[in-house]
């Protein structure tokens, strides 16, 4: 009798009784993946020498009075954390792909894709008509 009552109650509310546990499980999984395992990639702007590399050109402010050069780096978060700690500022290891990195890619400026690139002189921006090859240092052949 009691079992029948419980099964009737479940049938009546099966939407909530199914949904609520799944949402909790999803929450636990997500927490484990991001907060515990840090299982995701991080992208950031790495340092770039315009005399030797094809750098992206960025602005420090809205009026673009000060420019800077950068590459786009994508790395596996636990690797960056291991190399630099929580903050990548002034961390040299963050600017390069190391052999032990699980995933790492550095994207250089490609004028062909209409990126704003710095010239070799490094102080003026240009969108050259000539195609520049994409320079990627991809240890694991994964280009994000």
């Amino acid at each position: 009798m009691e079992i029948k009552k419980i099964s009737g109650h479940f049938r009546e509310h099966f939407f909530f009784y199914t949904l609520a546990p799944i949402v909790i499980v999803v929450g636990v999984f997500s927490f484990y993946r991001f907060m515990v395992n840090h299982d995701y990639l991080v992208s950031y702007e790495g340092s770039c020498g315009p005399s030797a590399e094809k750098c992206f050109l960025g602005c420090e402010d809205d009026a673009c009075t000060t420019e800077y050069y950068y590459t786009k780096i994508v790395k596996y978060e636990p690797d960056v954390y291991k190399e630099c700690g929580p903050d990548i500022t002034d961390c040299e290891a963050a600017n390069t792909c190391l052999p032990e990195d699980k995933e790492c890619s550095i994207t250089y400026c490609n004028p062909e894709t209409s990126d704003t690139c710095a010239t070799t002189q490094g102080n003026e921006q240009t969108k050259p008509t000539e195609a520049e090859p994409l320079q990627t240092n991809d240890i694991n052949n994964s280009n994000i």
Partner: protein
Amino acid sequence: MICYLFPAPTYFFFSPDVPAILYYAQIPATLIALLMGFYIFWNGKHLLLNRLLFSISVLFSLWTITTLIAWTNIHSDFIMFIWSFFSLILGLISIFCTYFIYVFLEKKSVSARIKTIFLILLAPLLFFAATPFNLRGFNLTNCDAFDFESTVFKTYGTSLGLLAMVWILVLLIRKYRIANADFKKQIVLMGIGIELFLFSFFGMEFLATYLTKIGLLPDSQLELYGLFGMVIFMIYIIILIVKFGAFNIKLLATQALVWGLVALIGSEFFFAKSRTTQALIGITFAASLVVGYYLIKSVKKEIEQKEIMLKLNIELKQSIKQRESLVHLITHKVKGSFTRTKFLFAGMLDGTFGEISPEIKKRAKQGFDFDEGGIKTVDLVLNVSNMQNGLIKYNMKNLDFKELVEQTISEKRIPIEEKGLKLEAEVKPENYSMVGDPIWLKEVVNNLIENSFKYTKEGKITVGLEKKDNKILFSVKDTGVGITEEDKQNLFKEGGRGAKSVEINVDSTGYGLFTVKLIVEAHKGKVWVDSEGEGKGSQFYVELPTTI
């Protein structure tokens, strides 16, 4: 990892580096949604409709809080964790809104088949929310995850909103066609509210994400404008509650207005920059809370009293109706008995039953008079009852009031003078034509003269008739027992009579003067009495308009 270009927020939520609209959109919308959600839930925890609206308000608040964190926080782990739920929350809001409308329209839960469809629609969002299919990475430079979101996953979440809009619209139209007029109004209000909410919420969210992704917008602050849709939805919910008592709640418009204002003033506090402004808003907030509380309390009390009075009024009307039917039953029975015995006595008097002795004839005459008095009293009570119920139809026509008065005087002169009283008439020569029912107006004149006759032992009765301010003023003055101030208050009320009236007139019913009042008022006139006190006589006045 931390977003190295952004400052850390203070108190978890406050960052100087976010658009001002963020707090202005998030906080009032969240507060209003949560307040309403809790209020509705609290007032009907057992009702599915209330629970669903509460769930929507909680999901919406979860959305606003998580987006607020995503805007202000700089820790990638935490932002990624909450970002993974964005599409799921959107999907849940869509499904719960649809579920809510089903219950609102059908007044019962949905079938197992619909519930299964809901779960199937949510399944992709649930199963992939925590996987790389939803989110793969985080941009530390921009402090967001737009570049790493799966377009398919995101589009699916948003398209559930579109599906909900269409689904709800179809349900509303189908029900509207067969609903009664009252429910049609509710459907329109609910439909506008929820469709506006879904349109602004999902529409803005989709536009903001899409335009940010393709680089047309620097960030997704456009989506913040969509949150005002929830405020609009809640306003419609409040209208439904106030006007139609939806959600089984008795909400007063005052309550809704006061708490809405309090929420708005309170939310101002979060984006006030200077200390002075914060202090002023704090004081205004506290003052509005206190004033609002007392205002609601007093309005509530007033409404409760009104409701009690309304209930009592209904009960009173029922009781009067029952009493009237009882009075009618009794009076008809009594009148029937009186009439039968009256005819018996009449038969004895006119010799129908043969010759009777003078002594028996004398007794038969007494019995005949008693019966006639009894019939008159019953008629009086019946008339009053009929007048109160509007059963008396006055036959209004042009008449000369002076004629009525003179006719009654001539009829009453003999019995009055037999009692040793003098009857004087002071009729000023004027035109006394008016519109009225001659039978009932004669009853007024007759009743007032009769009244003076009964309560005057010696002296005289003076009947006056004159015109004042184009109105007829009829009066009956006597040198009788007079009336105390206390008795004056009850004299023209149902069953009202002077404290000593029964001592003088044992047949006093207390209905005579009440009948006069009802007849005079039916002729748009008024009646009153003057007396200098006990033993000093009294003067009754009747003022009647010449036209009605």
